């Protein structure tokens, strides 16, 4: 039987068990859309903007662990998708993006809607392909999925010229295996390094586990829990790692970094042995590198050798899958006598008692932190929470306790405003029975609002929790602290009436102005199971995110809420502990 390139492409997606393609049509992909129309294995979600397609596919991927798939046309289709591709790339999310290209003979001639998609995306994909022959389509799709999902995952782009989608050839079976001589992502961790790490761990007096996105991406939650409990070590998690280890567990000291907990940052600062588990020592974590973990030996577990010793030199580098490495470490350590760390725990509990996440409630204004606490209560901590970027993102991370992985979905590496709403739609498609909340700000939500329309078309009910502080709050906070309160362009006048706006999209809108109405509104919203509800919650415009490590600071230089002075409670002599 003869098939055209478009049909071969769609069959290949079917062979990869693709459930959803998020996309938007255009000239260069019309044959592909035609091929989609005549089958029903692969469902297509028609977004309202290609950036929305990439974020929705990304949210789907983060929730399900399966790669997200995107289909866009050439030219403006692919350029619109770039932000979402870069977002997925920074957070190591598996994604396959198919972009149409102008017909092969026209490439390079400034044809209508031509852009060099491979060139434009090169620095924000794990790999990309330009398909030059119909015979290569199936093999390329196979490779793309393999590359996107193995090793350190990431987005892969396949650019397909239009003529190749209409060319015909006799159908062949989809390749079962793939072998790329220059890409061998499976690595077995060095047992010598594992032994060295185990020795260091066993004799450390002030240890801390620092787990990141790799524990979520690598589905290593089970091993992480076993490892942490075996050792009885304190564990801190990055913004990307939240939930791999339960946030409510007593060994958890919360998030670390710029807006991390006091106890987490102080423990990093005072530690003699930091075990980094699928985390990449981002500058939002380390702050000033010269002040970072001054007394610690660093053990670093990562699948990507280039993450190791990139920012912070590792004393014991371990290249491997988080889950596998932790299992081996568990075997190595389960019969070993560990050093008594009760004094270290006493010190940590002392830091805990500072209670760095307390905030002052005030009459007549809703505190954003209260909203997240109420959201946590109403959803019993079981919702998937996506977020946009800004203060609301930090509050969601700090005040919603995540006890399971893949429940907290946000753009950490690129920090893409607009991510939250389409990501929530993707999450809902991946896990339709679970409540999905999108925590957002009045600034961020306006970057991808159009996806409300898609959400009506495909009935993906999510609850939008908009912390409307009337400001680009995170920008305003920096201006308050570091630019002598000159609030340049962080105030947006003429906000829309979000309730009416949502209603016009066919959803439900609720405005909350008083704290007394907050919980009832949330309960009402979540009771409407099959409705998307926009909660426009007016929150304190002056509230700031604390703790905060200002630029140039180290982990012991934190600004805490309600205090003017920089807290440097690091008077303790760590070596004495």
């Amino acid at each position, binding site marked *: 039987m003869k098939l055209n390139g478009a049909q071969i492409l769609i069959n290949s997606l079917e062979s990869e068990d693709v459930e959803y393609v998020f996309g938007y049509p255009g000239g260069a992909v019309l044959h592909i859309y035609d091929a989609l129309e005549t089958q029903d294995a692969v469902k297509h979600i028609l977004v309202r903007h290609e950036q929305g397609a990439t974020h929705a596919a990304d949210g789907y991927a983060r929730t399900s662990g399966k790669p997200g798939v995107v289909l866009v046309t050439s030219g403006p289709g692919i350029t619109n998708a770039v932000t979402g591709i870069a977002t997925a790339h920074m957070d190591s999310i598996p994604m396959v993006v198919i972009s149409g290209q102008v017909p092969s003979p026209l490439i390079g001639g400034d044809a209508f809607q031509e852009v060099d998609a*491979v060139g434009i995306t090169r620095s924000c994909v794990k790999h990309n392909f330009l398909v030059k022959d119909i015979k290569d389509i199936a093999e390329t799709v196979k490779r793309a999925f393999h590359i996107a999902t193995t090793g350190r995952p990431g987005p892969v782009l396949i650019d397909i010229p239009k003529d190749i989608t209409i060319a015909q050839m006799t159908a062949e079976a989809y390749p079962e295996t793939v072998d790329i001589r*220059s890409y061998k992502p499976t690595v077995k961790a060095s047992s010598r390094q594992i032994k060295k790490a185990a020795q260091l761990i066993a004799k450390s007096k002030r240890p801390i586990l620092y787990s990141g996105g790799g524990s979520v991406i690598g589905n290593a939650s089970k091993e992480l829990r076993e490892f942490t409990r075996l050792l009885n070590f304190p564990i801190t998690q990055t913004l990307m790692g939240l939930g791999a280890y339960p946030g409510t567990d007593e060994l958890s000291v919360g998030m670390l970094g710029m807006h991390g907990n006091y106890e987490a940052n102080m423990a990093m600062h005072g530690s003699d042995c930091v075990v980094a588990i699928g985390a990449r020592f981002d500058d939002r974590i380390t702050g000033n590198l010269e002040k970072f973990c001054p007394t610690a030996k660093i053990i670093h577990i990562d699948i990507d*050798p280039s993450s190791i010793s990139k920012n912070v030199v590792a004393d014991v580098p371990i290249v491997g899958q988080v889950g596998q490495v932790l299992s081996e470490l568990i075997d190595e350590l389960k019969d070993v006598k560990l050093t008594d760390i009760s004094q270290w725990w006493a010190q940590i509990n002392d830091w805990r008692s500072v209670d760095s996440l307390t905030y002052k409630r005030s009459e007549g204004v809703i505190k954003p932190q209260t909203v997240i606490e109420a959201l946590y209560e109403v959803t019993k901590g079981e919702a998937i929470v996506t977020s946009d970027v800004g203060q609301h993102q930090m509050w969601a991370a700090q005040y919603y306790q995540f006890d399971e992985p893949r429940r907290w979905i946000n753009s950490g590496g690129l920090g893409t405003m607009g991510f939250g709403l389409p990501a929530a739609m993707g999450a809902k498609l991946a896990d339709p029975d679970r409540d999905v909340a999108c925590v957002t700000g009045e600034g961020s939500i306006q970057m991808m609002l159009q996806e409300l329309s898609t959400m009506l078309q495909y009935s993906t009910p999510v609850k939008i929790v908009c912390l409307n502080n009337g400001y680009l709050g995170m920008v305003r906070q920096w201006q308050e602290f570091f630019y002598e309160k000159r609030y340049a362009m962080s105030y947006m006048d003429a906000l829309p009436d979000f309730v009416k706006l949502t209603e016009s999209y066919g959803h439900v809108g609720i405005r909350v102005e008083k704290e007394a109405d907050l919980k009832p509104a949330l309960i009402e919203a979540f009771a409407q199971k099959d409705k998307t509800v926009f909660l426009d919650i007016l929150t304190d415009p002056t509230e700031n995110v604390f703790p905060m490590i200002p630029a140039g600071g180290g982990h012991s230089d934190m600004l805490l809420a309600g205090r003017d002075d920089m807290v440097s409670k690091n008077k303790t002599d760590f070596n004495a502990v």
Partner: protein
Amino acid sequence: MRHIISILLENEAGALSRVSGLFSARGFNIESLTVAQTNDPGLSRMTIVSSGSDRVIEQIVKQLNKLIDVVKVIDLTDQDHVERELMLIKVCVNKKDELEVKQLVDIFSCKIVDVSDRTYTIEIAGKTRKLNAFLNALDFAIVMEVSRTGVTGISRGRTVI
């Protein structure tokens, strides 16, 4: 420190730009870059001369390895190796310079490969240092044009990349 990094990569359109793009995107320095097909037509060999601290060079090697098209990377600096560069120089020769230029060509054991009315084109191959020395020895005023290939290298003995 100066390092010579040798890379085997798939001989595919775009592979070169992946490597050069990596260097510019990450702010790594490139002193020279040469690339051509190897005895296996499916593979190209690229030689990059870069400089940086040990940590920077370590990152360069790791990041290169991460590129899907890259089959193998080695830092030749670490091993016994041969390195060569080729340079073509066009000089303008008046009667009075002629002898001196010919003497220099002899001393540096290079060749005059083209002669025209009052110009010589000289070919010289060797280590970068030798090429620089030759260039310095020539009277600056007579040099019209210089074209250098950049360094290529290979390890000594039976070791292969």
